[in-house]
């Protein structure tokens, strides 16, 4: 087996999910200069609602092909997370819009804890298995293997990324979002309802987060109430790596982080002479975060972030 090629495949799978989540962080930051730390919990809730929904359908003997069940689960989870994203902004962040920047940041951490605890009350503290409804055929090539699920994850991520870019770059609404991110006051003069644009940004980010949560859960066959913390932190790292506030940067950062983590963990055992195994893969994300913050706080594609922060 070709370990290097295998790790690249794994990295792309994980990285494309990081990219979807990182977009949620970066879009909100672009408009509000706020790190929405509750975004990781949105990802988790997206996964949990989908699993619950699929189990409910299976429990009621709904006999449908796996991908269709998954689509129905998502059709439930996406509106739920969008509503949640809307409410979080409306209730927790909007009243603090003119407050010092530390206040919404602490609030974001608070919201994150509230959602995590609420999820534990609803779904319990145990791991939830992802229903085995998806085909997991393995495709072999070049000494490496990839499952059909992983191919689907990458494909779906690409479709969503292209869709988002078309929305932001080619539609009137996207133009208004970009204008608002640059100058809310002037956008208002043009007739843009800035509050609506902000709500919309939270909702789009949440929808992407929900899909990402489901993809992660399907990939690892499980989900749990505190999964949002780690994946949220990693996606945040990806957003910072790419240059927070920059959409292209979030995608680049996500993919790169996925690759670094995957390739790094693949060779971690060799590198440390067996002292550290691949279970320590999480150190790479935080190593990247620390290095970026020290050497290039504006990220790979970012500009002017350092002066704003």
């Amino acid at each position: 087996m070709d370990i290097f090629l295998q790790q690249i495949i794994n990295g792309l799978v994980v990285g494309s999910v990081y990219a979807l989540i990182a977009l949620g962080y970066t879009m909100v930051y672009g408009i509000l200069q706020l790190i929405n730390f509750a975004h990781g919990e949105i990802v988790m809730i997206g996964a949990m609602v989908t699993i619950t929904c699929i189990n409910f359908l299976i429990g009621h003997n709904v006999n449908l092909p796996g991908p269709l069940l998954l689509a129905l689960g998502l059709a439930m989870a996406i509106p739920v997370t969008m509503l949640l994203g809307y409410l979080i902004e409306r209730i927790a962040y909007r009243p603090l819009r003119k407050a010092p920047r530390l206040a919404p940041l602490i609030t974001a951490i608070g919201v994150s804890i509230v959602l995590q605890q609420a999820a534990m009350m609803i779904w319990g503290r145990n791991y939830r298995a992802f229903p085995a409804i998806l085909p997991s055929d393995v495709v072999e090539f070049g000494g490496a293997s990839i499952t059909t699920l992983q191919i689907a994850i990458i494909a779906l991520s690409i479709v969503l990324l292209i869709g988002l870019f078309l929305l932001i770059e080619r539609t009137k609404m996207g133009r208004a979002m970009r204008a608002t991110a640059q100058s809310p006051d002037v956008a208002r003069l043009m007739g843009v309802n800035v509050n609506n644009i902000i709500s919309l940004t939270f909702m789009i980010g949440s929808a992407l987060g929900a899909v990402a949560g489901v993809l992660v859960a399907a990939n690892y066959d499980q989900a749990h109430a505190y999964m949002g913390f780690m994946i949220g932190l990693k996606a945040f790292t990806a957003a910072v790596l790419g240059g927070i506030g920059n959409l292209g940067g979030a995608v680049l950062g996500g993919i790169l982080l996925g690759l670094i983590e995957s390739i790094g963990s693949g060779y971690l055992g060799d590198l440390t002479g067996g002292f550290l195994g691949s279970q320590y893969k999480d150190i790479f994300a935080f190593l990247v975060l620390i290095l970026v913050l020290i050497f290039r706080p504006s990220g790979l594609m970012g500009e002017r972030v350092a002066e704003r922060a």
Partner: protein
Amino acid sequence: MLQVKNLKVAYGGIHAVKGIDLEIKQGELVALIGANGAGKTTTLKTLVGMVKPAEGDILFNGQSITRMPAHEHVNHGLVMVPEGRGIFSRLTVEENLLMGAYVRNDKAAIKQDLERVYELFPRLKERMKQLAGTLSGGEQQMVAIGRALLSRPKLLLLDEPSMGLAPIIVQKIFEIIRMIAAEGVTMLLVEQNAKLALQTANRGYVMESGSITLSDTAENLLANTKIQEAYLGE
């Protein structure tokens, strides 16, 4: 068209505007002149809802707009070109212009208006795909004015259109301002370049530390010795 009654604006205890009255009639080009910090920009910002007044009333075509949210003003034809131009530097020239038509849905007419702006400013047509932040100050001012025209203004508020521009560009911008006025757009022009403003306007108001101290025809203001001494540098 616009009536302002006893307008007072305060920023955290500082009274920037201390109870002013203004009136602008359909088709007029009115100048608001005064020194730096007299409250001119605050007045304009209050007219478009960016700043909430402490007291007073603003009537637009007889309807009170004092408490109207900022983003609804453009629907009524009340449009401002902000101080410092306020262009979206990371949007292209064309995207900036189209932001002016944000509340409009008449696609064919928007396209026509866009072509008209390009006729008015051929330089912008050459640079339509360029990011607006890469333009010179004069070109950015053209974008800001062109963008305002795409909002189809009934009353256009211009805040310091000459600021930071070379004299030859200022001439060009004021030519355009006269042209827009000739087409029947009512305008309120805030300028530190009082001479140019009064030469362009029909009427003028003079603002001093938050109050209107003088109001007359532009001709009379230009002939007024006090104004000449204080603002015209003569």
